[in-house]
């Protein structure tokens, strides 16, 4: 009887908050309770759909992103589109570009492809490198750990914008540009992912159930696969969800500076560069890419917050923080510094909850120090 009391009544025994306790189902349940995150997920889904269906949509419109339409440009007025609202018409749903007359709708949806594609690609690279380096550092001996941690520190210190700006300048232009941008961003900005993964792996490694698996007679590889990697999924997904919007900003910034995705491939960053000149004559030329960028990054950020809330990575590390071993304690401090721009998950959750709930939640919420987004640009 008394055992049941422990389970059912003791508040704060963390029973229910054990991460992944019932896996994906619990994740969806927690995500569903966040209205803002659901809306954001819807927006993201719509954007992905737009990007995927770009050829289809432009075919329906009857346009493509690269054809010039000199006839739609009023050269007498310095190259602004003919007609009101930047030349909006049945043929050109969102008008045309000043000077060239290229179709804006087509450029926007093809730009979404570039934006999302590059950001996702960069995130995949970051996560892969980060997980491999982080796990290797945590499981390797003292020297491997020292070496990999130092290298990680160097990459954390590298300013993404500067390095990628410089790197993109020297790579021959024959290389497919979007792919290149994704790789450059991914290979420079993996440091924080590696730090988080290392810290989390060290925490998991110290847990008794990993010791128990060792006592069962399993080898290191099997333990890493069965006991450690599933425990890493939550923090990695959480961080990846925050990386995607950062990478979108980074790509747009690089293209804005003229070193990212190059014409004729359309990109929101490029469109903004041009808008710098045209904002007075054709304001929607500024509003379209800026709005698209804003909505995308905002939706992805809110979604990332929601994912973090649903996965609650802090609960995992609160299970037990170190057992007096310095490496773990240090790692925990590291991860506190590295966990990206913490903010409370309550940001998006229902903020009107009672004060008590706010406080209890914020404990679970990440807080933590942060490394933030090099890519914010």
């Amino acid at each position, binding site marked *: 009887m*008394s*055992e*049941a*009391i*422990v*389970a*059912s*009544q*003791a*508040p704060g*025994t*963390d*029973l*229910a908050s*054990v*991460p*992944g*306790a*019932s*896996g994906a189902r619990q994740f969806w349940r927690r995500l569903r309770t966040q209205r803002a995150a659901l809306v954001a997920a819807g927006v993201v889904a719509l954007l992905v759909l737009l990007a995927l269906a770009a050829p289809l949509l432009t075919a329906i419109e009857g346009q493509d992103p690269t054809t010039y339409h000199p006839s739609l440009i009023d050269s007498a007025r310095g190259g602004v589109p003919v007609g009101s609202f930047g030349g909006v018409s049945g043929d050109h749903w969102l008008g045309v570009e000043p000077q060239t007359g290229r179709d804006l709708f087509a450029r926007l949806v093809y730009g979404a492809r570039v934006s999302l594609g590059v950001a996702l690609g960069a995130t995949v690279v970051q996560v892969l490198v980060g997980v491999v380096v982080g796990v290797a550092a945590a499981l390797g001996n003292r020297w491997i750990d020292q070496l990999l941690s130092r290298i990680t520190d160097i990459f954390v210190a590298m300013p993404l914008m500067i390095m990628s700006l410089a790197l993109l300048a020297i790579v021959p232009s024959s290389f497919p540009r979007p792919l290149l941008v994704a790789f450059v961003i991914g290979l420079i900005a993996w440091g924080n992912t590696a730090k988080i993964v290392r810290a989390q792996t060290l925490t998991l490694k110290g*847990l*008794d*159930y990993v*010791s*128990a*698996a*060792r*006592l*069962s*007679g*399993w080898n290191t590889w099997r333990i890493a696969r*069965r*006991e450690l990697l*599933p*425990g890493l999924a939550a923090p990695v997904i959480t961080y990846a969800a925050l990386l995607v919007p950062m990478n979108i900003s980074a790509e747009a910034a690089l293209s804005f500076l003229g070193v990212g995705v190059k014409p004729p491939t359309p990109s929101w960053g490029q469109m903004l560069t041009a808008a710098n000149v045209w904002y007075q004559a054709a304001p929607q030329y500024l509003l379209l890419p800026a709005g698209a960028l804003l909505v995308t990054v905002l939706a992805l950020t809110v979604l990332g917050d929601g994912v973090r809330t649903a996965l609650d990575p802090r609960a995992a590390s609160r*299970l*037990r923080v170190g057992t007096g*071993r*310095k490496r773990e304690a240090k790692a925990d401090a590291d991860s506190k510094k590295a966990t990206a721009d913490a903010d409370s998950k309550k940001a998006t959750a229902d903020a009107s909850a*009672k*004060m*008590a*709930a706010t*406080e209890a939640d914020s404990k679970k919420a990440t807080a933590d120090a942060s490394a933030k987004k090099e890519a914010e640009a």
Partner: protein
Amino acid sequence: MSLVEVTDLTVGFGSLRAVDGLSFRLEKGAALGLVGESGSGKSTVASALLGLHRGTGADVGGSVRVAGIDVQEAPDAELRRLRGGKAAMVFQDPLSSLDPYYAVGDQIAEVYRVHVKASRRAARARAVEVLDRVGIPDAARRARSRPHEFSGGMRQRALIAMALACEPDLLIADEPTTALDVTVQAQILDLLHTLREETGMGLLLVTHDVGVAAESVDEILVMRHGRAVEHGLVGAVLGAPAQAYTQELLGAVPRVDAPRTASAVTEEVVLEASGLRREFGRGKKAFVAVDDVSLTIHRGETLGIVGESGSGKTTLGRMLVGLLEPTAGEIKPGGGVRPDVQMVFQDPVSSLNPRRSVGESIADPLRAQGERDEGRIRGRVRELLERVGLEAAHYDRYPHEFSGGQRQRVGIARALAADPRVIVCDEPVSALDVTTQAQVVALLAELQRELGLALVFVAHDLAVVRQVSDRVAVMRRGRIVEYGPADEVYESPRDPYTKQLLAAVPALDPEVAAQRRTARRQLTAV
């Protein structure tokens, strides 16, 4: 007028009723112990006395009067005057209960200035004074240290000093010694006793440990499910409990003076360790956790390893199962060569992978040994689950669906799956309530009898160790200071440290407790 008058108090958190219609009084200068297992609502009562639930969304009903103030109705300003000024609270974990960023003296001075109009300087002087009062040596200097520079016992003293700062009429102590070693616990309880004698303040002691209550209070109130089960003078309640639950609770409390029923100890050696040494760190930071430890473990016996935190007992246990390599010395299995030492872990939360069903966890050793037949694996796991008092159908459940005691049973089943000859139990019951603890201890004894297992029982609780062990090793700073048959060690200890430990164990009988207190004074006086 009584110091504390609680009438029909109810505290609810959502659908959960933590306290359900509780009434009691505490007279000026008296001491009352609230005793109960986890979830009984005892700590909630302590918070309610200071109105700490205000503004948290908890539903509080009934009435609470402390030092003449109606806690429910009083305006915020008056409630703040009550808190710390008339009734002060001491919390369980002394490390997290102080702000890590400020000097201890400054924190006490801050609290003092909330209640007393005093200059910064006078407040600091007061802080030093109360720190000195609670026995912090060199208080003027230590007042400038921050909490992490203090030891656990010193931190708890500092918290008590904070409580004393404004000379309250009532001291509320919420599990004040739970996080401390037994010898430090005795010091803190003695300090509380002395302070009460000197200042005449009332004491409300919240604890799960009946012994701690017996040491320190006049009256005892046993709680369960938020209700009072039994209330009376300590001697009466503990000597002749009237309620079934109190009887059960007291029956489950391990006694340090009750010898173990003999077990079937054989002469067959199953594990032999000689000259074990383990260091952590290197260079100047090197630290010897275990130093020159030799042990022999026989089939069918239980070897108790007892020591306070930092004594190296857990490190020793981990070396015995092979989770840690010894820096020096060797461990030899007696006879067999197969890896036949398994472990039961302390923490029922972290010792099971939350993402795998308990059946899968238990099956691990079988699969690792090369068993491929799923039917045989499932059959064996079901058998093991039933063997440890769970149901075969629990195979597909996940750890979070179990209580702490049940999880510990799963851990035992997993250890048994490897068919070991020795099981090292590292504090297997310290995270459990006392009645659950008794059940798990009984299960281990039963398994030992049936399977002829050798058990190494690592624990800090002297009473539990006595209850289960045939032989006992007392550890201190990495070394074994006393090693021998349990009865000998407990009844005629030779080492002064063992004597000190035994004298520090709280007694259930208030008279014995008073004797022990005198004995402790003599021991420390020497």
